């Protein structure tokens, strides 16, 4: 649905002062149809710049951006405006017009495309119902809570039936509970309408809750990307480690420390108990976390096995054979 190739964006120095900022240094990214794709990264990594390039709010210095089969970078102004009707956008600070009612805000995009008044009314009622705000249509934004404002923002973005929804930190100014309800809403809309969602966030919680795929951006480069479950099974994946922080506890010298990752049915099996029974070893659990990631039960566990790696070869082999991803963190031969 979205294909980004060799995207570069640099900001020239302002008024000749300072240096050129290379915000994006060659981004390649593909967001498949119907995905919820999360881009994570630290402040200043280039997340907003990347997202704003997708609908060309920010014009790339070089590279191409294809959305729904159309290369946006080659379009003229009028064509680009038309293409934007098919790409909804949701903002951290909602960006609702204070002088318009909720319904009038939702209708704004339809006014732009020249939809007649009656059809606009009907459509805004429809999408407001979808986001659970049917009864607040004639309220003004100032009369709404943050979560409700974001629902209006989402309704506005969906009014024109877009194929793609872009979200720039949509939940970052909301409290944790409201964040969850907005994330659930996005997930529902993704399922119900099949709308592809690309969101950026600095909260791993968002990725954990709703993303099917994710990418990590550092200093203007994508350092990791892929399906979330696959990433969890990727050796040394930073996203996986961020999703499952296990703390820093280390084993005693001479022992072997491994991290195992399990997904799906494996999460329900008594791995540790079986291992100590079958091999007669005392397994020490240094850290563990089980979570629901994109509707899968997945877990990560850090285990300390007594003795060197050589003496633990068989139990580790056994774990791998049963389909678990095992990473050896510390070992002596």
């Amino acid at each position: 649905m979205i294909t980004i190739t060799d995207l570069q964006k640099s900001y020239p120095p302002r008024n000749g002062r300072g240096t050129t900022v290379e915000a994006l240094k060659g981004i390649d990214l593909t967001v498949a149809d119907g995905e919820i794709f999360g881009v994570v990264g630290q402040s200043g990594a280039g997340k907003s710049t990347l997202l704003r390039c997708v609908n060309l709010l920010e014009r790339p210095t070089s590279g191409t951006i294809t959305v729904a089969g159309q290369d946006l970078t080659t379009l003229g102004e009028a064509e680009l405006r038309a293409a934007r009707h098919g790409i909804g956008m949701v903002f951290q600070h909602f960006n609702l017009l204070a002088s318009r009612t909720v319904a009038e805000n939702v209708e704004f995009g339809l006014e732009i495309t020249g939809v007649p008044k009656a059809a606009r009314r009907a459509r805004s009622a429809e999408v407001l119902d979808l986001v659970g705000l049917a009864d607040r249509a004639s309220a003004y934004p100032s009369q709404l809570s943050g979560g409700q404002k974001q629902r209006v923002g989402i309704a506005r973005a969906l009014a024109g039936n877009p194929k793609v929804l872009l979200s720039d930190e949509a939940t970052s100014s909301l409290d944790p509970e409201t964040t969850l309800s907005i994330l659930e809403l996005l997930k529902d809309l993704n399922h119900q309408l099949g709308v592809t969602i690309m969101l950026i966030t600095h909260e791993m919680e968002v990725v954990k809750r709703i993303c099917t795929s994710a990418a990590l951006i550092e200093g203007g480069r994508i350092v990791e990307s892929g399906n979330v479950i696959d990433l969890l099974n990727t050796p040394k994946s930073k996203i996986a480690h961020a999703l499952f922080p296990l703390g820093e506890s280390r084993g005693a010298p001479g022992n072997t420390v491994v991290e195992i990752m399990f997904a799906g049915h494996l999460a329900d099996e008594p791995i540790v108990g079986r291992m100590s029974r079958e091999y007669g070893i005392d397994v020490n659990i240094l850290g563990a976390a089980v979570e629901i990631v994109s509707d899968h039960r997945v877990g990560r566990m850090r285990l300390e096995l007594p003795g060197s790696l050589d003496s633990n070869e068989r139990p580790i082999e056994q774990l791998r054979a049963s389909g678990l991803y095992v990473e050896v963190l510390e070992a002596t031969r």
Partner: protein
Amino acid sequence: MNVNWVTMVPILTKALGETFQMIGIALAFTIVFGLLVGVLLVSTDEGGVYESPFGSRRLGSIIHSVLGFIVNIGRSLPFIILMVVLIPFTRLIIGTFIGPTAAAVPLTIAAIPFFARLVEIALREVDQGLIEAARSMGARRGTIIWKVLLAEARPSIVLALSTSVISLLNYSAIAGTIGAGGIGDIAIRYGYQRYDNAYLFTTIVILIVIVQVVQLVASAVARTLSRR
């Protein structure tokens, strides 16, 4: 104080009519051109929707600087001097420089830059995020100016308008001294030159009432328009 209401009322009524006439004409032009200049000042500035008219950033920055310069000139001349300087121009377009209609010319010229700067400030207060949202929906520049910038700034623009009306009232009194007529003319002619305090105090009361009413109405309208 000996007040002869029978002679004073018709004189004041006529003067009030002249004041409203010159302010009315000036205000109509000020609203149109002040909004236009205010919008241009904001939209041709860096980051504005018309920062690069016809694809040229240089052209945008030239329009911005030239307009800013002209507005500053208009703002730096004291009204009495502006009025005198504009006499030939006024004569050219009205045929005379005497009377309320002729006075509307310098009043307009003085009020446009004043109102334009206030409009500029009002428009700059509109959150950039709203413009960004409109752009993301594929809005044209004209739509952004009408339905985002001007629509959202309406409460501040109404207040700016009331400030401009009050300034116009102030200028109109000065215009009265060179033959514009109006309430200011009465205050000067009867109050200052003939030491008739009845006229002086009555005009003061009238001016205070007008200013209060303008301000009250504007505040009420602004409050209704702003849904914060």
